[in-house]
């Protein structure tokens, strides 16, 4: 059985993002594996460890520096990795889907594809669905519970208001992981040493034959969102503060 885990190299969630004009931003911040993809990878590793005898392949689309996130994936326990190397930071989601599909199809035949429900950088929220159609597999996203038996997968998917759908799918299928699915492991130092010996195959984007189309969704610019300033601070007796707050919310802000 072969499991492909699609991951993304993204700025740390604690990093401040500084736009530098046009579509550029300060890329010198710390980068990490997209947090939702960690849940996906952890699930793949658990399937392998539970005796399914799976090979786990981590795949990403990104610039050369994304190799560091693939190393993290290998240190967590992925068997090998593939980088589809792009020149630009931003790639249209539909294009990313095609590149992942093409790279995976060339490599082998997936029994299961796992990825995060969304990336925390571009928040396109669509890669699992694009892969589902390209591979002709069923897809479930926002998955917080997963089990697999006899060629079928059962997942719980979180929908609105703390409500969950229980979904049965045939395999092969695509799963978009969410927080709550598991607790991703932290690689140890020996894990990291071992990861250095594992294979990372680099495929230039151009080799997959998708150079220079006008993207269907084109990023024109990036603007920072300023925080609002210091608020009007009330203090003193709680009852009085609350009365004043309600007056402000009703008369000044007009939100009540």
């Amino acid at each position, binding site marked *: 059985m072969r499991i492909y885990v699609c991951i993304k190299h993204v700025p740390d969630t604690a990093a401040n993002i500084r736009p530098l004009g046009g579509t550029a931003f300060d890329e010198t911040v710390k980068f990490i594996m997209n947090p939702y993809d960690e849940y996906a990878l952890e699930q793949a590793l658990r399937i392998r460890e539970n005796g399914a005898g799976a090979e786990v392949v981590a795949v990403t689309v990104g610039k050369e520096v994304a190799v560091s996130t693939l190393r993290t994936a290998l240190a967590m326990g992925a068997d090998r990795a593939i980088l589809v190397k792009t020149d630009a930071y931003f790639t249209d989601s539909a294009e990313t889907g095609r590149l992942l599909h093409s790279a995976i199809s060339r490599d082998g035949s997936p029994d299961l594809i796992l990825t995060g429900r969304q990336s925390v950088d571009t928040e396109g929220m669509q890669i699992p669905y*694009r892969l589902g159609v390209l591979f002709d597999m069923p897809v479930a996203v926002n998955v917080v519970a997963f089990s697999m038996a006899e060629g079928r997968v059962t997942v719980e998917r979180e929908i609105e208001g703390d409500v969950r759908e229980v979904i049965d799918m045939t395999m092969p299928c695509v799963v978009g992981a969410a*927080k709550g699915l598991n607790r991703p492991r932290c690689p140890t130092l020996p894990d990291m040493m071992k990861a250095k010996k594992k294979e990372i195959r680099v495929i230039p984007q151009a080799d997959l034959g998708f150079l220079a189309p006008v993207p269907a969704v084109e990023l024109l*610019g*990036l603007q920072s969102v300023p*925080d609002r300033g*210091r*608020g009007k601070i009330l203090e003193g007796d709680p009852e009085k503060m609350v009365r004043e707050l*309600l007056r*402000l919310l009703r008369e000044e802000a007009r939100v009540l």
Partner: protein
Amino acid sequence: MARIGVLIEAREGEIKKTTLGALTAARQDPKGEVYALLPEPNAETCHQVLRQYGADRIVVIQTPEADLSPFPEGQAAVLAAAIDRFQLDALLGASGQAGRDLLARIASIIGAPLILDCLDIDFPSGTVRKSHFSGKTTATLRLNSRPWILGLRPNIIPERIDPRPGDIVVYEIPLHASKRLVIREVKQGSSGGPDVSEAEIIISGGRAVGSAENFRILKECASVLGAAVGASRAAVDAGFASNALQVGQTGKTVSPRLYIACGISGSVQHFAGMKTAKVIVAVNNDPDAPIFQKCDYGLLGDLFEVVPALTRALGPTQTK
């Protein structure tokens, strides 16, 4: 003349409020003709509401299966067919959990460009704005091919009455849903309240709330305020609240009209999830809490005194 479809979501026979916001957004196209797409059978009262909020036409979709709701692949296939049948230039919907799932399925089936969680849409230029890096930046994106599939962040555009004829068009499609994916069961969670990503008012608690039991005071306040309860990552990771309630970079992104943060210091990650709230109120007993530097109103005090005081002041009769 552009034909704009709007994906209509209903719950218990009532059109969802976030869907009405999508209708209003569709009406912002000066040359648009708005098609309300009803994927499931709905009552006449729903049609009246759709007319009131600006549907030029109401497309009632009929399939051999009476109920497609256990088959999201089938629902998406039917809606993709409707886009083709009515030659729609765009399909808009609310980007809540349900809407974004269906919109992404539809866009993938037809290979159309998809932008979810849009903050606004400029129809003449074909550009939209959405958050990148979880609310830290706003991206401007241009759509270079049609049909556009767009999900609008819930509550970002307030719904507006704009009556239109809303002629009924019945669209019968002889499609049998694929059964390779089936929703077998829908389980209600423990929190029971409205979903944070669609709520208009949210009261959230942080680590300072101290325990799952103490979240009760927020729930009581939420019920008199007509609000949803949210939580910071710290509160969720400490086990005080379920994952479904988490607001922030690795939780849900929200745009309520009022966000009340109780005992939340105001990390970059938390703000990423609630920055677009219209009004932010912070309750914190630490005068140096960073949240006071980026809110609209701050209450310097103990949340265990302030929140119950707020509940009492609003009284048990308040429903909105």
